[in-house]
């Protein structure tokens, strides 16, 4: 029962974080800041939802697969974010506040 409630909190919290990230994706002013909002939905949202599902699945093959999905997501999302930021930078998209890079 406690496990059930905990997993519900995780699932709903994950959904909430996802929506917050989506709103941030719309509200943030430029490309680089939107990257951070995207990172939010990619990390904590995925973490909470998969954790909630693992609690429901218990110790089984299903849990191992869910954990693998989480592992893939957490390993690929920084690579994708970094590749995106780098591609934007090489394409000449200037990040705001670059003047402060020398201090």
């Amino acid at each position, binding site marked *: 029962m406690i496990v059930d409630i905990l997993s*519900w909190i995780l*699932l*709903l919290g*994950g*959904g*909430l974080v*996802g*929506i917050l*990230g*989506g*709103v941030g*994706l*719309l509200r943030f002013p430029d*490309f680089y800041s*939107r*990257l951070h909002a*995207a990172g939010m*939905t*990619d990390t904590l*949202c*995925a973490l909470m*939802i*998969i954790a*909630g*599902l693992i609690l*429901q699945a218990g110790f089984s093959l*299903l849990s191992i*697969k*869910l954990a*693998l*999905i989480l592992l*893939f*997501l957490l390993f*690929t*999302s920084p*690579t*994708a974010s970094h*590749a*995106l930021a780098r*591609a*934007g930078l*090489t*394409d000449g*998209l200037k990040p705001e506040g670059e003047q402060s890079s020398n201090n």
Partner: protein
Amino acid sequence: MIYTLAALTMLATMALALARALLGPTVWDRIVAVNVFGTKTVLLVALISFVMGHELFIDIALAYALINFIAIIAVLKLVNVQHSLEREEEP
């Protein structure tokens, strides 16, 4: 029930990402939005497998997580090559 609710929040996130993909303004903004859309699809498929009670859907989510990553990297490469080609033609 709780799974359906969580799946709905994922759909809402995907709708927001889709709006950003349509608004742009640069091609990179669109790719960020599509990336978010893709990772949320993975979570949505995982949730749907619990809604329906079919464990097989998890394998689809697993495969989709990998395909989405490779697709994003491929699109980035393609757009990069296209932009550098355009820049060569300009002067």
